[in-house]
């Protein structure tokens, strides 16, 4: 233990000493400066460690001058104070180091004194146990901050300092006055003493007014809306290093005071106050940042928002009615939030220091300049926006699950705000990863430390809190996830990474075999692992384009899906769900034109994840068992999350570009397996939750309609796509619509249809995307009108594509038909006749694009520029072959898949009988009809061969002619371009259905975005930049607080 007074006294003495030293030697001054900071760091660290390890159990009480508490000033350092103190000096040390590398402004000695005293002030604020002493330290901090903010001596920084000073003076006036009034009212200045005295006096309105005055002063320093104009100006105008320390360390000290005020000054309206101001600030700030063009200011908005969330948490934390366990969770969440925000935000500001321009467009492409920069940036952004396993995620999770159910609207507020946060942070991400940007600075050591600390803290939090929250992790999955990250090391060779990944997935399959197949979870596990292994095989790195992080991220996606399907508890599922979503975000973002797509993907993922989280929160229990819920809200929220991944209309907006522009190696996984996680989720949601609500059938009927409309509209839009991957994207979304219908029916037949189609869709769509990847790799474009005639160059790919297309179209005897047959049977059995009609129509329309793919890519005239392309690379060809053979085999023997599916359902009540049986001649027999797959296959193949042989024997000599040799009014065309009908296929059909393909949903989403932005823009105007106005807001808000939160009228 280091006596806290030593920290303060030694820092002070050395500040004085530096004041002398700098006159004589700058070098020594600098040395001494760092020596002091390092000492502080270790001293504060030792105290914190003492508390952590349990060596110090009681709060450290320092009696200055030897007087017992109410008489003299004392410092009171408990665990939270020690933690914040350590945090302050860590951030200060990082900031100082960063500044040193960058070069202190002249005169250096002075600025070092200011910096030292700033951290000292913050530490003093944290440690002190006396109100007036608190005021003194606040003033030390403020004055140092004024000086530091102005330290850049630019117009902006000086302006910011002035505003800060004016508003800060008002704040300290409030604090000083209220402290003196407190003394008058209670006769003491000591916090503990006042706390005990307050219990003995009745809380008259006047007394409350005094407390409110104190809080009003604090709220100014805590940057609540709308009295935070000064803070935003400071964030924007001041040197980023200063801002990093202010936002990372100093504000946290103020926050601790806020907590103490809530603890010691028993203010009845504290809860309401913190809810209104914290929540309001959080919500408003997350949205008004949307249109912000200045990166530093927008980071400022984010800081303000995070503080708002902390204030809100404080309200709950100090609410005496909260159960102990929830209190514990909120406490943990506050700690994590503080840590997260301090390091992530400081890192971001220090990164901003490395970028010349602070304008958004000045950040364009800078991530592609320096991988280290990218790493730090991504880590910080992920952590702030709450991506697992970073601390921000755990903080949010803990907070949400600690909030009592009767305040569930607060959850809505938190999640909506978080969504707003996603929007603007990933807009920055998008901008920063787009194209090639300017060079960035290399002063990255301090932010790098921050980023590493974040990762470490995230993992520690994972270990500490996951089990407390009831989140259970399969240890094998964790091991595999660790392996996934480790693949990064092999990054010097993509081939090695590929092989390593295959080995890891292979090992995963080997370890997971006992889990596979037995039940629903095992079924999907098998799909995930085996399917991913196949698709991974097809990612054979053919070019240097693949990023280093591709394989690690790919494997994280795979194993988080494995963890997801193995989850036995909603929260576990959610954690893995988020992991999967964000890892796939990383992968999508690797596409060179996918930045916008990735942004939209991030937004929609967040919409889904947050609504799912809200649903999970509202569930009566967390385990995956039958849960009774009332009303339609819970299932709606829950299912929305899954529908987003399935890209069900109207949540499909992200899908086109995410599928179309993501790296070609990744798209098969995205379409083949990741979308199936939505299926899995919807299935268990229907099984465990929706099936049990009173309005169950009608809700499922809505789901059915959603599926049908998705199937229809997406199919229709797919017809008019000219980009191969986009076409497949819409097709994929449409096909998943069928699956949703099957799920919604929730009869044995329906679920058989859904699961069968799930597997089938993985096979044929995986195959199609793999083929597309190969074709695009060879041809160099995904624009179909520029292809054509490739059947001559890629026969195997054509054959497998053909089979896949037949499966996609659902034409017997290939296996795609099975899903269709089961689905229609289920639909008719259920009597959902309108859905049946729409579904039928959708599948007919699908023929249009099926032909389009085959024709535009493989048939017609071979273009001259493609005349030398080769068959797809060998690994891809293997995968294609495996997949198309399995399509054929399943086509003949659907029982190979139907039997396992039935085994899966056998354990589920009400699903024991599959709704059909097998007969020798009739094949699969349902209550309505029958279908003999093997017969059809034999019949078709047999008669086909028969006809072929007959033809070959009897017919005339067949003469092969060149591709230009067509009957063309007697002319011989000169070039294939003249003859290839690629552009404007189905233009006639477009005219017929133009009312259906109007992108209404996209327009609506865009409209929502525009409206919110516009509204935010208006709200943002309250920050006029005029200091008079800022001061007026302060007065106004204080009056409002005084008026509404006391009885004084």
């Amino acid at each position: 233990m280091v006596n806290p007074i030593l920290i303060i006294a030694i820092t002070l003495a050395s500040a004085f000493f530096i004041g002398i030293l700098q006159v004589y030697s700058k070098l020594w001054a600098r040395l001494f400066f760092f020596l002091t900071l390092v000492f502080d760091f270790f001293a504060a660290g030792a105290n914190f460690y003492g508390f952590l390890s349990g060596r110090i159990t009681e709060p450290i009480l320092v009696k200055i001058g030897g007087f017992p508490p109410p008489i003299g000033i004392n410092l009171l350092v408990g665990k939270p104070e020690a933690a914040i103190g350590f945090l302050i000096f860590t951030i200060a040390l990082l900031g100082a180091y960063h500044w040193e590398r960058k070069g202190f402004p002249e005169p250096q000695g002075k600025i070092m004194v200011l910096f030292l005293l700033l951290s000292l002030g913050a530490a003093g604020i944290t440690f002190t146990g006396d109100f007036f002493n608190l005021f003194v330290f606040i003033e030390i901090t403020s004055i140092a901050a004024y000086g530091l903010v102005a330290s850049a001596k630019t117009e902006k920084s000086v302006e910011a300092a002035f505003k800060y000073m004016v508003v800060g003076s008002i704040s300290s006036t409030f604090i000083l006055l209220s402290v003196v009034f407190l003394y008058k009212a209670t006769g003491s200045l000591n916090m503990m003493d006042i706390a005990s005295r307050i219990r003995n006096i009745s809380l008259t309105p006047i007394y409350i007014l005094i407390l409110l005055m104190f809080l009003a002063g604090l709220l100014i320093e805590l940057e609540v809306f709308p009295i935070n104009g000064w803070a935003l100006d400071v964030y924007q105008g001041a040197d980023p290093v200063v801002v990093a320390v202010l936002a990372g360390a100093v504000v946290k000290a103020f926050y601790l005071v806020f907590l103490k005020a809530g603890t010691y000054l028993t203010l009845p309206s504290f809860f309401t106050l913190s809810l209104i101001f914290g929540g309001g600030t959080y919500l408003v700030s997350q949205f008004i940042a949307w249109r912000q063009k200045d990166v530093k200011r927008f980071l400022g908005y984010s800081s303000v928002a995070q503080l708002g969330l902390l204030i809100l948490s404080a309200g709950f934390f100090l609410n005496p009615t909260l159960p102990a366990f929830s209190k514990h969770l909120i406490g943990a969440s506050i700690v994590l939030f503080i840590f997260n925000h301090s390091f992530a935000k400081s890192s971001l500001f220090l990164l901003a220091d490395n970028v010349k321009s602070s304008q958004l467009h000045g950040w364009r492409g800078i991530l592609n300049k320096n991988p280290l920069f990218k790493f730090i940036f991504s880590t910080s952004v992920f952590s702030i926006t709450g991506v697992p396993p970073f601390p921000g995620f755990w903080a949010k999770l803990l907070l949400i699950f600690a909030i009592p159910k009767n305040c569930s609207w607060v959850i809505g507020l938190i999640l909506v705000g978080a969504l707003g946060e996603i929007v603007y942070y990933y807009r920055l991400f998008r901008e920063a990863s787009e194209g090639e940007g300017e060079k960035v600075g290399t002063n990255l050591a301090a932010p790098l430390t921050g980023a590493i600390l974040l990762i470490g803290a995230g993992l520690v939090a994972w270990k500490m809190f996951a089990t407390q929250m009831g989140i259970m992790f399969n240890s094998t999955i964790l091991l595999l996830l660790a392996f996934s990250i480790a693949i990064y090391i092999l990054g010097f060779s993509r081939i090695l990474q590929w092989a390593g990944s295959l080995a890891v997935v292979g090992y995963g399959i080997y370890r997971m075999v006992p889990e596979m197949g037995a039940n629903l979870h095992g079924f999907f596990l098998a799909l995930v692992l085996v399917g991913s292994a196949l698709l991974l095989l097809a990612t054979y790195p053919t070019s240097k384009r693949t990023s280093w992080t591709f394989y690690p991220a790919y494997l994280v996606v795979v194993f988080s899906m494995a963890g997801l399907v193995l989850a036995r508890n909603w929260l576990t599922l959610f954690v893995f769900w988020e992991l999967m979503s964000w890892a796939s975000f990383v992968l999508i973002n690797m596409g060179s034109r996918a930045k916008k797509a990735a942004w939209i993907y991030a937004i929609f993922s967040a919409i889904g994840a947050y609504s799912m989280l809200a649903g999970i929160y509202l569930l009566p229990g967390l385990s995956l068992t039958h849960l009774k819920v009332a009303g339609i809200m819970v299932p709606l929220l829950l299912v929305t999350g899954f529908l987003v991944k399935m890209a069900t209309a109207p949540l499909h907006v992200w899908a086109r570009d995410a599928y179309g522009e993501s790296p070609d190696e990744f798209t098969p996984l995205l379409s083949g397996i990741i979308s199936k996680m939505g299926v899995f989720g919807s299935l268990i949601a229907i099984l465990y939750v929706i099936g049990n609500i009173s309005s169950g059938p009608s809700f499922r009927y809505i789901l059915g309609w959603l599926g049908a409309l998705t199937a229809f509209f997406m199919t229709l839009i797919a017809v008019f796509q000219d980009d191969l991957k986009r076409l497949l994207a819409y097709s994929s979304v449409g096909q998943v619509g069928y699956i949703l219908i099957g799920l919604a029916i929730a009869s044995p037949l329906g679920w058989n249809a859904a699961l069968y189609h799930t597997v089938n869709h993985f096979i044929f769509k995986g195959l199609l995307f793999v083929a597309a990847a190969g074709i695009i790799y060879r041809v160099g474009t995904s624009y179909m009108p520029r292809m054509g005639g490739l059947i001559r160059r890629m026969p195997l790919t054509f054959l497998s594509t053909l089979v896949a297309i037949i499966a996609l179209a659902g034409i017997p005897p290939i296996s795609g038909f099975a899903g269709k047959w089961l689905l229609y049977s289920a639909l008719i059995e259920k009597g959902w006749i309108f859905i049946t009609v729409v579904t039928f129509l959708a599948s007919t329309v699908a023929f249009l694009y099926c032909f389009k793919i085959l024709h535009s890519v493989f048939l017609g005239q071979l273009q001259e520029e493609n005349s030398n392309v080769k068959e797809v690379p060998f690994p891809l060809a293997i995968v294609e072959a495996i997949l198309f053979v399995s399509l054929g085999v399943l086509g003949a023997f659907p029982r190979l898949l139907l039997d396992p599916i039935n085994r899966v359902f056998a354990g589920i009540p009400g699903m024991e009988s599959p709704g059909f049986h097998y007969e020798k001649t009739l094949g699969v027999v349902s209550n309505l009809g029958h279908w003999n797959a093997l017969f059809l296959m034999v019949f078709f193949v047999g008669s086909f061969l028969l006809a072929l042989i007959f033809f070959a024997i009897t017919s005339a000599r067949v003469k092969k002619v060149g591709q230009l040799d067509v009957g063309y009014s007697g002319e011989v065309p000169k070039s294939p371009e003249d003859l290839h009908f690629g552009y404007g296929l189905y233009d006639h059909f477009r005219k017929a259905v133009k009312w259906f393909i109007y992108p209404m949903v996209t327009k609506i989403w865009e409209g929502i975005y525009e409206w919110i932005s516009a509204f935010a823009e208006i709200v943002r105007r309250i920050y006029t930049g005029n200091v008079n106005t800022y001061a007026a807001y302060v007065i106004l808000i204080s009056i409002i607080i005084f008026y509404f939160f006391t009885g004084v009228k």
Partner: protein
Amino acid sequence: MVARIFYAFLILLGGIAYGLLLGGISRKITARLQNRRGPTIFQNFIDVWKLFRKKTAISHGVMFYLAPMFRLVGGAGTFLLVPIVVGHPYLSNFSFGGDLIVIMYFMVLGCLGMALGAAESGHPHSPIAVTRGLSLMAGYELPFVVSVVVLMIADKTTTVEGIVRAQQGGILHWHIFTHPFAAAAAFISLLGMMMSYPFQVVMAPQEIPIGPPTEYSSSFLSYMFSGRSVFAVAKYVLFMDLFLGGATNLGWAFLKTFLIFLWPLFITNVFPRFKLEQAVSFFWTWPTLIGLIDLIRIYIVR
């Protein structure tokens, strides 16, 4: 089983012959209506034989080569999956292979195969015609599906046999009378299926000679021709089974299919041609609405 295959073969040949004959009749009637003498009603047999006997055939590639087989097998397969006389050991064909859903999807196989072969020919007219055909299909499928769903729901079965059995016991039990609107929708969509006027935009003899198979000739074409004929017969039989109560023997079958055959023929010679978008819009509105009447009725009374 061998006997069954043998009979099936015979039935198939009969089907092809019947189809060719109907084609001839249609040409004759059309000619007469246009004040021409017209070819003999056996002209189609002559054409097929002539084409089949040609010495050389031009091929543009593998798919081009295989497409006629696809076409023939698709047509023949569909024909053989639809029972002509329900319950008859041979005339019920291979209807155990699948129900109406199977048949509806199997029908596409031949078209798809042909479309692919045609597209490989590299002639720009082929894909134009194919896309028209597919678009038209998307058009007429809707009313057809509406009426089929009506029947499936009404009879609580998806098998053709079941639907036929449900119509036994008198002419008024035929679906054309019990579900007149559904039947009307289906029969309108039959016009599209037969690609006769006013929905002849696919073949469009004026701009894209004889539609998709524009590059086909000689024995390839003869295969296609046969496939098309038997496919048409398959559709007539299917309509017979669905709406006209099926057949109890071959005679009834001939009669009823002939009646169905006449229906498009009447229309063909009266109307001009729709543009494609008009055709699709037409199918998606009027016949669908008509069919919906019965669908809603079924939905309510079910």
